[in-house]
């Protein structure tokens, strides 16, 4: 087998990214959509870390920032979800069609 | 092959760092066995010590002084019917105890019982330990949710909130210890568990006594947070018997329940070993700064053997006090045999090569054992906190204290 190169990692990351995109576009459950976003962010992270192996550590720093961002996004996203659920009693994405309540 | 095996013994690296798979495997097996024995012993000791604190005798029937009680319990749990509620989520219900056990055991990969006695030495050792032990909360949440019942769910919500909030105070305390490792000529600290102990060796002080009282306060924060992390009294709200019957593992029985039990005790040992490594000098012997020199080294190196001889003496004393009745014959012989084994171990620990090898492991285990005793003591003494009070302690007391200690440690590190 060929030795594992950067490209191998990139392919894994691409697969995860596509999975995340499918999840975001097709699922109706808000929680799962949020989790799909996490998948996308993670795919990006994997790319960054894989590149950091070639071009220095900056990629890892970016990965850490992305994780920070993911934490912030999850907190706000879940907060919105709770507020949404309290008003609509559903977690269906298609019902999110009001700008205010 | 033989070379491969013996070559490691001469190196002063951990098997993981030396890349020696054979010895790494041996260490893993040893730690697994040792941990199981420790949990069994802990079970017996906790019941005995609690009993004696509460003016009763504790287990006395199975074996002399109840020595075989934990084994009887384990057998009972294994034979018991394993019940799964019909409305439970089978996969999650099934995997939750496994996850808890796996995380509790995985932590021990980086615990340094001595300068070379660890499975491996990661340069993110502390981070790894905190990370993996924080995974156990997932198992708790899964167990509570999968049971599909009110009490477990409330227990799971309580414990996840509790574990997540105390992790922060814990992390702050850990960082101030890591900060202390950087007080050398190069100014480089380390996250490696072995590196932290070596830093304490280089500075000739346990970090608990560094920058008095800063180190002590950080140790105190960690000591409180680790009790909360492991859901033990007085922070045992998730499994508070009088409130939530048994919390997140109410619906578990038999073998699966025993896995939770095993995980709880090994998690206690794990966090105790982090505390010992970070603040109590890991495998260092006591008083490294005040009582140093060859003579003291020799004196302290005799302590392991003496400890075992003392235990043997206590056992022999108890044997002599056993009732002289044919009914107790087997038990008396058993207790005497146990004492003889202890005495043999004690004598063996005086032989110089063994003595030198065992030093580190003995001191480390002794400190962990002390920490475990504290756990039992807390349980015997304190009432239980209420949930809002628990959160108050975590966020309003420990967190500001942790930040303060961290800042002051940094300042002290620059000044001194």
């Amino acid at each position, binding site marked *: 087998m060929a030795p*594992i190169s950067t490209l191998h990692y990139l392919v894994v990351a*691409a*697969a995860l990214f596509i999975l995340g995109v499918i999840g975001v576009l*097709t699922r109706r459950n808000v929680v799962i959509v949020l989790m799909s976003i996490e998948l996308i962010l993670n795919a990006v992270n994997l790319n960054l870390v894989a590149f950091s*192996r070639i071009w220095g550590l900056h990629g890892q720093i970016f990965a*850490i920032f992305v994780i920070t961002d993911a934490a912030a996004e999850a907190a706000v996203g879940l907060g919105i*979800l709770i507020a949404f659920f309290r008003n609509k009693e559903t977690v269906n994405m298609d019902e999110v069609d009001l700008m205010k309540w | 092959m033989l070379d491969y095996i013996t070559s490691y013994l001469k190196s002063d690296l951990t098997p993981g760092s030396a890349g020696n798979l054979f010895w790494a495997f041996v260490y893993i097996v040893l730690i697994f066995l040792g941990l199981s024995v420790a949990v069994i012993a802990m079970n017996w000791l906790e019941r005995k010590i609690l009993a004696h604190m509460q003016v009763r005798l504790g287990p006395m029937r199975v074996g002399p002084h109840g020595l075989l009680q934990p084994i009887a319990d384990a057998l009972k749990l294994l034979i018991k019917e394993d019940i799964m509620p019909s409305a439970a989520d089978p996969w999650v219900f099934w995997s939750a105890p496994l996850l808890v056990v796996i995380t509790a055991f995985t932590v021990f990969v980086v615990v340094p019982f001595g300068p070379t006695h660890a499975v491996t030495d990661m340069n993110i050792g502390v981070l790894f330990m905190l990370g993996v032990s924080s995974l156990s909360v997932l198992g708790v949440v899964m167990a509570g949710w999968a049971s599909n019942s009110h009490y477990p769910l409330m227990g799971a919500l309580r414990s996840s909130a509790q574990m*997540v909030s105390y992790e922060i105070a814990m992390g702050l305390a850990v960082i101030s210890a890591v900060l202390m490792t950087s007080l050398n000529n190069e100014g480089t600290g380390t996250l490696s568990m072995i590196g932290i102990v070596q830093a304490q060796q280089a500075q000739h002080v346990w970090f608990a006594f560094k920058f008095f009282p800063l180190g002590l306060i950080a140790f105190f924060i960690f000591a409180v947070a680790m009790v909360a992390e492991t859901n033990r009294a007085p922070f045992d709200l998730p499994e508070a018997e009088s409130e939530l019957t048994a919390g997140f593992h109410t619906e578990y029985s038999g073998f699966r329940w025993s896995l939770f039990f095993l995980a709880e005790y090994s998690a206690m040992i794990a966090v105790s070993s982090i505390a010992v490594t970070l603040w109590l000098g890991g495998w260092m012997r006591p008083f490294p700064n005040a009582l140093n020199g060859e003579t003291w080294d020799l004196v302290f190196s005799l302590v392991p053997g003496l400890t075992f001889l003392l235990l043997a003496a206590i056992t022999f004393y108890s044997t002599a006090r056993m009732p002289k009745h044919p009914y107790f014959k087997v038990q008396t012989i058993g207790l005497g045999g146990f004492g003889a084994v202890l005495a043999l171990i004690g004598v063996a620990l005086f032989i110089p090569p063994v003595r030198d090898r065992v030093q580190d492991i003995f001191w480390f285990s002794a400190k962990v054992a002390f920490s475990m005793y504290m756990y039992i003591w807390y349980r015997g003494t304190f009432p239980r906190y209420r949930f809002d009070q628990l959160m108050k302690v975590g966020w309003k007391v420990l967190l500001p204290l942790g930040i303060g200690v961290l800042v002051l440690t940094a300042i002290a590190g620059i000044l001194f």
Partner: protein
Amino acid sequence: MAPVATTFFFYFLSALTVLSGVLVITRKNAVHSALALIVSLLGQAALYLMLYAPFVAGVQIILYAGGIMVLFLFVIMLVSIEKAQKEEQFNQQWLVGLAAALALGALFVLVYVKGRALFPDRGILMPEQSNTQQVAVLLYGNYMFTFEIASLLLLVAIIGAVVMAKKRI
């Protein structure tokens, strides 16, 4: 230490990561999805270790698997999911979504095939011992300002989450 069985571990871990990724977007039950995501994240943490990024791996385990996912599970337990499970799981535009994803995949394939030269196979092996230090030096040196902004972002997120989730202010 020298890595052992890199090829095997790479394929094993990436299979684990991708398969649990598939589970994330296909499970009916949100808790199962979250658990699959945790497995996927842990697999990725192991991949980071293989890429000589132990610090990022540690952060991934603590923050992602131990922190964010617990938050997710917490919320899933708070909102009732029984009703959501009985409903239709995919929305009407699932064909469009699938097509978009396929197009994206084709784009990736194109880029990787055409731009192969951009990603040299030789990897500069980072000295494992000082990874944490190097990250720290960069983080508190070059990226100091970014770091501070990130802390601000987190503060805003905390306030935002509290405001959103509170029953009444």
